[in-house]
């Protein structure tokens, strides 16, 4: 578990700690110890585990979310709930004396308040998710599986893409497929190093995203190759789109290793329409081979130019 986010919530950590310690302080001051014979073990185990898990929830909420309104309300609500749970557990060991018997009446009120706060927080979380979904458009398609995200480009890996493409085929929707490959990328890696190569891949991923329609999906195929799914697109539109991506990559002045001189890189694309009844794998293979042939063509052209020069 990565705990780096945890330490950014200073004020919430204080609230959490107060809610964690206050029940103990209150009960030790106001209560009288019960005899061991009075302990009800089933209650202790039941209520104890609820309290313990609530503590874990608060910590995981703090560790996984950046500071903000939703986080604040979630942690606040959970902390109130935890406060009541802790009082519940501790009064299995202690009894209120007669003048503080009112405590047992009010001990569940913080839980109720906490639940209300959490309900509001969940509604806000829902709104937040909708906003994030819009941000993730073109990276993701009606389905979320974080374990399939490629760490280098932050796009999904091709198995996710394949599943979505097959889904589209099953729904009898035709789609265009674009496969895109960076020209001479191994030389780029040699020249600028693999770290810069990875960064360039990330930049290309961004560029492709900017050129897509909201319903399209781009994923990383392997190495320096990307695949794009364009549902309900015609071949002509897809070819246009591919050309636009080629143009925008061509015009990027990439500054490698903080140099001021720019490196220009180009990409080549291959386009095909995927009909509902064609084999996806075969279509992909054909596209890939087409791309490889284009690269050989470019190489031989270059060699010829050298010879002429």
């Amino acid at each position, binding site marked *: 578990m990565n705990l780096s986010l945890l330490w950014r919530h200073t004020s919430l950590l204080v609230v959490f700690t107060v809610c964690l310690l206050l029940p103990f302080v209150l009960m030790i001051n106001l209560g009288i110890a019960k005899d061991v014979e009075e302990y009800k073990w089933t209650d202790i185990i039941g209520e104890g585990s609820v309290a313990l898990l609530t503590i874990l929830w608060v910590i995981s909420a703090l560790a996984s979310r950046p500071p903000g309104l939703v986080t604040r309300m979630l942690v606040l609500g959970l902390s109130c709930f935890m406060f009541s749970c802790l009082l519940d557990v501790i009064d299995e060991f202690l009894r209120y004396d007669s003048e503080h018997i009112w405590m047992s009446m009010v001990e569940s009120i913080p839980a109720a308040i906490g639940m209300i706060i959490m309900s509001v927080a969940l509604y806000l979380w829902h709104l937040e998710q909708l906003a994030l979904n819009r941000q993730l458009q073109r990276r993701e398609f009606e389905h979320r599986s974080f*374990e399939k995200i*490629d*760490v*280098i480009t932050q796009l999904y*890996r*091709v*198995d996710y893409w394949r599943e979505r493409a097959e889904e589209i085929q099953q729904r009898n929707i035709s789609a265009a497929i674009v496969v895109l490959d960076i020209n001479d990328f*191994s030389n780029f*890696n*040699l020249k600028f190093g*693999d*770290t810069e190569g*990875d960064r360039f891949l990330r930049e290309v991923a961004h560029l492709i995203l900017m050129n897509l329609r909201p319903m399209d999906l781009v994923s990383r*195929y*392997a*190495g320096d*190759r990307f695949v794009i799914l364009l549902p309900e697109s015609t071949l002509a539109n897809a070819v246009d789109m591919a050309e636009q991506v080629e143009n925008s990559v061509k015009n990027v002045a990439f500054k490698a290793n903080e140099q001021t001189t720019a490196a220009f890189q180009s990409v080549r694309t291959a386009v095909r329409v995927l009909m509902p009844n064609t084999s996806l794998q075969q279509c992909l*293979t054909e596209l*890939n*081979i087409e791309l*490889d042939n284009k690269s*050989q063509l470019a*190489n031989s052209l270059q060699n010829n130019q050298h010879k002429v020069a």
Partner: protein
Amino acid sequence: MTYLNYQDKYLPLELYAATVVDVCIARGVNINKLLRGTGVFKADIIKGEHASPSQILRLFSNAQALTPGYDCAFQIGRRLAANQQNTVMQALHYSRSFEESLRLVTLFENICSPFIAATFIKQNGSGYWLLKQKLGLGKLEQFVMEIFCTALVSLSQHVLGHRVKFYFGFQWQKPKQIQEYEENLGYRTYFEQPANVIAVQWSSLAKSNVNRNDLLKRHAIHKANKLIMCKFSLLEHVRYLIAGSPIAPLPQIAEQLKTSPATLKRKLKEHGSSFKQLHDEVRKHQAIHCLILQGLNNEQSALLMDISDATNFRRSIKRWTGYTPSELKKTCDFLPLIVLPS
């Protein structure tokens, strides 16, 4: 008798560990977790110390387990081929031709390819490598083979400026991550083959190196000279002896190695292998050599392989390769390569 051991420290960390660490860190792996249990420390890499095969294998297995995605082995292979920190690798990069690079790989075999041994067969203008494990790799076999093959393709790219068209036959099934094979090895990959094999048209290797620099190459070889080790692993020793006398039983081989049959059995087990396994493998490779690569018929092959009669031959081939001679030819139909007259 001396042979290479899992524990001998001769693998340069700046070549192996640095590459693995680079690939994994770029994919968000924690370096301490990656090095855990390997006995390799960051300081060792900085100082340029050496590690044993068992340490590097541990590192591979950590890398495989911790790295998300499917490209770990392929990226390691690519970067191993691009690494020019190591003097041996420098020599490969400045060679006269790709053919010479490969010859240097053979010369510095224990540095360049510590885990995979390759028998080279030249036949009718084509070159074939039958791949074998030098040390028992266990579950890492596929991972290490992927590294080896990707490094070979990448090396050709660096040396010639374009990729050589290799043909790859692998024993395992067509994997889910086929896109990595396509991207890194090309489309000429064949799965569920009787042996791991690489094939290539000889003419494509003899092309000259785009970075050729004779002086720098000789300097690199001079510096790397002390790294040449004429030592083989136990598995290779035993394979060699079996190939020499294929009907010799274990005690006879043990005698030739000046050890007892029980010790040999135990040692082979430590290497994740057994006498029978090695024997079957040697015979399988011989069968592929005769029947497929040389294109001999059953009688000729039987004669060469020292098998007395035809029925016995068919049965033996089936036992060693899993296929009868005719099935074998069908399964390996991408071999032998047909060389078109240029």
